[in-house]
């Protein structure tokens, strides 16, 4: 489920490509006072997808235009990003539940 950069750093990506960028919104020292210590040790980061405004290089600063036409700036981390979530590997602990062989109402 980890979403890391697909294009290797330094890869040239053409203007207009659907990409994902990353931007640090708050450094650890800028975070809210009510944040738990483990969270406060990390920056507050945003990722957003959009169309690359000009040719760009993975790992470098770019700007993108989102689906609703807003412009965002950040580090280019992925070109043509995929949705990679899935149903996951089988969980055998679920397979005993509701089996027809164990149902008293089965014909």
């Amino acid at each position, binding site marked *: *489920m980890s979403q890391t950069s697909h294009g290797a750093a330094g890869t040239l990506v053409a203007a207009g490509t659907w990409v994902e960028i990353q931007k640090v919104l708050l450094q650890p020292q800028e975070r*809210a006072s009510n*944040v738990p210590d*483990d969270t406060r040790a990390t920056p507050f980061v945003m990722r957003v997808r959009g169309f690359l405004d000009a040719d760009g290089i993975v790992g470098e600063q770019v700007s993108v235009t989102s689906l609703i036409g807003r412009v965002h700036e950040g580090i280019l981390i992925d070109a043509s990003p995929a949705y990679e979530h*899935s149903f*996951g590997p089988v*969980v055998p602990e679920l397979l005993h539940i509701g089996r027809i062989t164990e149902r008293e109402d089965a014909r």
Partner: protein
Amino acid sequence: MSGRDMSYEAVMARRNEIMMASLGIDYDEFELTDLAFDYEKMMGRTGYSLEDVARIQHETKVGSTPLFELRNLTNAVRRYAEPGKGARIFVKDEAANASGSYKARRASIACYEAAAKGYRGVATATSGNYGAGVASQAAMRSLACVVVQEVYDSRFVGQPEIVEKSRACEAYGAEVLKLTVGPELFWQMLVVLEETGFFNASLYTPFGIRGVETLGVEIAQQCRDQAGREPDVVIATNAGGGNLTGTARGLLAAGAQDTRVVACSVDLSGLSMASDHDFNRKSFTTGHTGFGVPFTTEPDRADVPRNAARPLRYMDEYQLVSQGEVFYVTELLTKLEGMERGPAGNTSVTAAVTLAAQMAEDQIVVVQETEYTGAGKHHNRQLSFARENGIEVRVGDPAQNVPGRSIVIPERLEQVRGRVQDLDRLRRSRIKNCLKQLPAAQWSDVDYEYVAAETRSDRAFVESVLADMNA
């Protein structure tokens, strides 16, 4: 907007003016004292009748969802329940709404209002189904949409269920801002509202809650039509409280005064909701005690000045279930009833099993929602993800479940027992939070009346709690 200070402190300090501009509601007009406010006046502020809401919702593919009887599940409960016990279990198939959950009801009125008032777009901060609901409703009303989501821990591991919500929101044409863990999500939401001038489609405005009232009305009417009686119990999965509040208000509006309204949450006690470490150690992203308890005892912690969701005013009982019990019942629902649905409604199905086993055969318990399921949102993915994050998953006695450490899936249905949460403890906690707002020495009759309504109790109860606290 250029030139404005967008730092955390500066934006939070502008919170009230941003809220005013993005909602068009002056919450000050509902305030009665330094503690109390006029809840019903606020709810009436939408200007929409129940009929208006139903008509608006029908325009955008919301409402009139089927109510189904779960006969096989009921029979499975009757096999181990005492003779004469085993109430009929029904489910309101809210997955049939556009975007696949009851959240479309909440989003529909907000988006209608935004369009009617001439806003170009809507924005919302949510990692749940509500984002997809807003994005879908916004698409139908030709509004631009921004959804702000908490998706990742600091390793950029996304909670699978939320990654799916990101996808759904983008599928409906929204811009999705995917954030790492932290309450600063609210700051980012304010930044978006200020930058865009969009309508604040918060979950917790009167529009959001009025939109759910039709759900309660439909349940009362369909139950009368199909079973010849009103439901004895309606169970609502509880997180921010809007689901329960709106449904209960709808039941009352439809004349179902005797129906008991039961809250249900997944027990995640011991896990911090703002912790980077704990973020991916929970298998439920909502419908759990990490939201359900604090929002019940302090509703105004929401992203609007006064939360229209006030579940403690309406709940008769609060059931807790474990993660393992919900996963068991989710799988059983699929196998026995031929319906694959997501975790939110299935949390309530789990409580329904517990309650039905204790209720008479001729009684009726209604689960008031389902939600869609799919990649990321499926219980198999939640369990395999838990395993990848070091959580022990095994079959056994669900009483041994430890949130964040182990998920124990029952061997048999009769092990699904849930447990009851002490409502008076929640009432005392609500009263304690009221004291933080205004010391009891300064309470007037209006304040006592307000606190009694907030806790669904009476002045004598409130006074006895204050006496116990020496307040």
